[in-house]
């Protein structure tokens, strides 16, 4: 197939596939903790890191990762201070991230590079970025597998998890770092503005059909892989932006699942 004749497309498929394995794993826990918007807040904060990286001439992905980690711990800290309105912490950090990114972007000389982070540039991944994404992804995936039970129990009920011996604070801190690094590497590829959709949409699809927690995790990974690969194919042949196409493929699939499920439910009732 001609699409794989190009080095940049092969790289895009490899990076897209790797990200599709880890993003929904993190997304499942985020959705179950009712923190779906955290991806948005972190990705906007990552833009501030990208701008800072470009100004200081350090790799913008590293800048994004650093900003995301700071933002994620900021959200946790605010969440603990105002537990009754914990979702406010996401809005505060998101506003701060947008504000800082807006101010710092004024000092960035190469605005094209900065703009590529807004909607992603999966087809313009460098060798360093590909290895960086692969390394981070391996770390996230291994951590997710090792902490599978702890993350599930903490998402279900933190107090019960603590009583049964789960080191909740440590698990939450590790998960915060995992979320931050996942968002920062995903922001580079699918774009900061749509990374949270990549976290939530595959999980939303799998929750419609999953019959257990394990299935929900596995199906969300499966959906993410399908959306990413089909999104890349569609974007290549239709000449569309890959990041947006991947997310729109997912949203369309979610709508279809909901419609089919509703129709099937109606048929069963009749």
């Amino acid at each position, binding site marked *: 197939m001609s699409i794989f004749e190009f080095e940049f497309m092969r790289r895009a498929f490899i990076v897209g596939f790797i990200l599709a394995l880890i993003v929904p794993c993190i997304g499942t826990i985020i959705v179950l903790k009712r923190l779906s918007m955290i991806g948005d807040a972190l990705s906007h904060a990552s833009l501030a890191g990208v701008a800072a990286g470009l100004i200081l001439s350090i790799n913008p992905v590293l800048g994004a990762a650093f900003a995301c980690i700071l933002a994620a711990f900021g959200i946790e800290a605010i969440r603990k201070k105002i537990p009754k309105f914990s979702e406010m912490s996401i809005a505060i950090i998101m506003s701060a991230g947008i504000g800082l990114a807006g101010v710092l972007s004024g000092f960035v000389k190469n605005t094209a590079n900065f703009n590529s982070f807004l909607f992603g540039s999966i087809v313009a991944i460098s060798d360093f970025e590909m290895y960086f994404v692969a390394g981070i992804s391996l770390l996230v995936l291994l951590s997710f597998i090792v902490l599978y039970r702890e993350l599930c129990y903490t998402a279900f*009920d933190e*107090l019960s998890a603590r*009583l049964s011996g789960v080191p909740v604070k440590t698990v939450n801190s590790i998960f915060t770092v995992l979320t931050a690094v996942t968002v920062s590497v995903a922001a580079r590829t699918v774009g900061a503005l749509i990374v949270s959709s990549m976290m939530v949409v595959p999980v939303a699809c799998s929750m419609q059909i999953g019959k257990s*927690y394990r299935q929900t995790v596995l199906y969300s990974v499966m959906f993410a892989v399908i959306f990413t690969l089909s999104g890349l194919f569609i974007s290549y042949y239709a000449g569309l932006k890959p990041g947006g196409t991947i997310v729109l493929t997912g949203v369309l699939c979610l709508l279809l699942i909901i419609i089919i499920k509703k129709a099937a439910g109606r048929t069963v009732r009749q």
Partner: protein
Amino acid sequence: METVIKAQDISFSYGGEPILYNIGFSVNKGDFIAVTGANGSGKSTLMKLMLGEIQLQRGNIWLFGTEIRNFKHWPKIGYVPQNGTARAGGFPATALEIVRLNLYSNCGLMRFPTKALYKNADEALKLVGMQDYSKRLIGDMSGGQQQRVMIARVLAGEPELMLLDEPTTGIDAESAQSLYMLLSKLNRERKLTIIMITHDIARAADYVNRTLCLEEGSIVELMREQILTEQYHRHKHPQRSAENNDEHI
């Protein structure tokens, strides 16, 4: 008689407003206690203090003979939270997966449950009469069934003390009755010490051996006769009793 919980001179206030004032009580092994009181009387605060979820401001609590500040054996305590069923409703996990979560207390970090522990989870579901629902999503169950699964989850960890925060909220009268019967059976047959917050004292009184009532910051132990008198008045003057309840709410 072994003392499971001893609380002494506990005072607690939110933003300067006292909720609990110089409260003291003790719980013995094998007790089945109902804690009742009007909304805002500090029942949930007292439970959070016993669980170490909020810090003591004054007084002290001993759990299994150890001061709560130094207490490390939390897996000895099982907890069924208030609105646990509402929270569980949207969680995409089967009853068995939920119950198996609490096997953690017996195996810990980086160690996977053995076959014997998995059997514990199966038996816990059987004990609460939910073995036929083990593969069903928790969200697809009724409130009463979900609450049974929550209890099975706690039992899988083999606790010595079970704390329940309003376990019958949001479930119908028949399911509530059968839940009390289940708790009573666990208390009798497994010698499980149970402390349960409830508004439904009239029904719960038939199953518990002690009733503690929180009122205006202090705690009093209600005698069975007092509860029966209250029940009598409820039957005799349902309207007045309902009005009294409204005042409490």
